């Protein structure tokens, strides 16, 4: 499987930038066995993308599925009427995905059906999706989303994207920083911005149209906003001191950030319509790394006001601050899940930096990762997985772990140090 995946990514991605290839390191104990049959296609030359293989890889990466290898398949039905349930029962497949594509007027039209092998019935009947030749991967991710949602009951996040920073740093050479955008599976990476000065803290607007990040291009840190469709950029801040950690509010109207213009790192919000800055915290300690609560009424942030970095929450209406983390001596860069139940963070235990998740109801903290130097957790919009940055083989890489810690995979880069992932929202 891994070989197939590697081959797939090598073959079909543009060679301009390093790709992030997937290495699955851990899945759930009893994954659902699904057979994704190669897509039927009557064209004279093969499809530019192996759509079924992309679907299969998506489902496997989620940790919830164990796709049947093609080499084990007894038949390759492409239409519902060609399906013989006993072929699939024989290899223990619980579900079966059959699909076919045709090309009309430069577009690909795909039909797909999903069967419950044991119940011998269709669970998705005549699903349809179409797109341009450049959208074959999108077609695959769309099918993955539908299958995943039908079988798990959780909305699929395979059609989402991820922002990250790739850095090239050598002791003898000038630094090179790249802000990158890729599909959630690491494919189709593209360059958004390149600089010889640091780039960091990329983040998405809730509608997925704008991004914000910190750039040192003016020789000092400044927060920029950039439209993904037009590439148009705007510098939002130019204060003395820190200008960092931008975070869009859930309604997209405000940007929380850290500024030290008054001598001390404090949390501020910027109203993106009126351009008014409002100071949120007021403490002589470090206050930074704001992140909005799901309801938009509060901001969680890192502060060392108790002597060590811990995560606090401020309620914007009242200004009331409460401490959220008590387990350990270093908890930082918190992110609250969309359902408001879980806080993920960088957590230090015995000198090792892990990603941890805290149940906000019970206060119980659980370490999710076994790697070291972990940072920058970012939760998928469906809340199933999170991406984070770590080091592997002496390089910065991205890795993923499910919020129940059952599934783990790595996205190593062949080139620079990859860091600071930001998982996009749903685009529709």
């Amino acid at each position, binding site marked *: 499987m891994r070989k197939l995946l590697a081959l797939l990514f090598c073959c079909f991605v543009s060679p301009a930038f390093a790709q992030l290839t997937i290495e699955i390191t851990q899945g759930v104990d009893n994954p659902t066995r699904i057979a994704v049959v190669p897509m039927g296609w009557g064209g004279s030359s093969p499809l530019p993308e192996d759509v079924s293989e992309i679907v299969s890889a998506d489902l496997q990466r989620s940790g919830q599925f164990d796709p049947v290898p093609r080499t084990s398949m007894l038949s390759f039905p492409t239409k519902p009427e060609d399906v013989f349930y006993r072929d699939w029962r024989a290899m223990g497949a619980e579900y079966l995905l059959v699909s076919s594509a045709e090309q009309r007027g430069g577009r690909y039209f795909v039909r797909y059906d999903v069967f419950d092998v044991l119940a011998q019935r269709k669970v998705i009947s005549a699903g349809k999706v179409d797109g341009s030749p450049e959208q074959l991967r999108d077609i695959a991710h769309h099918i993955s989303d539908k299958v995943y949602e039908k079988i798990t009951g959780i909305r699929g996040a395979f059609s989402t994207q991820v922002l990250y920073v790739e850095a090239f*740093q*050598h*002791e003898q050479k000038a*630094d090179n920083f790249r802000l990158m955008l890729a599909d959630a599976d690491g494919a189709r990476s593209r360059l958004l911005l390149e600089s010889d000065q*640091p780039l*960091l*803290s990329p983040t998405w607007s809730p509608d997925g149209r704008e991004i914000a990040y910190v750039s*040192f291009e003016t*020789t*000092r*840190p400044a927060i920029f906003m950039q439209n993904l469709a037009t590439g148009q950029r705007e510098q939002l801040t130019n204060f003395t*001191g*820190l200008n*960092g*950690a931008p975070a869009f509010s859930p309604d997209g109207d405000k940007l929380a950030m*850290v500024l*030290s213009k008054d001598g001390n*790192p404090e949390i501020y919000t910027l109203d993106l319509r009126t351009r008014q800055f409002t100071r949120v915290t007021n403490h002589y300690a*470090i206050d*930074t*790394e704001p992140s909005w609560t799901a309801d938009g009424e509060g901001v969680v942030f*890192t502060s*060392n006001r108790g*002597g*060590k*970095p811990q995560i606090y929450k401020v309620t914007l209406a009242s200004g009331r601050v409460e401490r959220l983390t008590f387990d350990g*001596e*270093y908890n*930082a*860069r918190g992110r609250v899940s969309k359902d408001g139940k879980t806080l993920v963070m*960088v957590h*230090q235990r*015995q*000198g*090792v*930096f892990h990603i941890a998740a805290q149940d906000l109801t019970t206060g119980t903290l659980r370490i999710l990762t076994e790697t070291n*130097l972990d*940072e*920058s957790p970012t939760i998928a919009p469906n809340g199933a997985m999170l991406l984070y940055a770590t*080091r592997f083989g*002496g390089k910065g890489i991205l890795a993923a772990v499910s919020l129940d810690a059952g599934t783990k995979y790595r996205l190593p880069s062949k080139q620079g140090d990859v*860091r*600071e992932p930001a998982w996009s929202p749903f685009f529709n």
Partner: protein
Amino acid sequence: MITKAMKQGLSFAFVMAFLVGCSSTDTKTDEDAAGAGANGGVTTGTADGGALGSSNGMDDGMEELDKVIYFDFDQAVLLPAARSLLLAHSERLRNSDASARLEGHADERGSREYNMALGERRANAVRDFLVLQGVSRSNLEVISYGEERPLALGSGESSWSKNRRVEIDY
């Protein structure tokens, strides 16, 4: 001119007050720093022989001064070795009226934006010390690069201790 002279006189008074008041509080914070390192499973003793050795040059005004000040993990408190080095720098900065850029840095551990704030704290600690020594605040520019510009690449205390620093550039 008169006001400047008065200001310098005042800042000298502050320096004296600071130095007198320092000894007890600083000992305490340095202990805290050491304790933090031990609890975090981090090797302490990063007071750095390099900085100590270079501080010997303070008597000779023309000797090259070490331009890097080192810190303990998650700390922005000046270590004793840094103080003597900074005294030598402050003498030169006072006499030359040159402006200096103070670049704060952190090691790679922990989160990036917290490290950005920590780097600024460290550069501010150096700036405040120099100002107390009579260096004009307007001649000192502070910038933090957090963990984005490590001096030593690689993971491990030997790299980390070199990266927790403020670089004085003038």
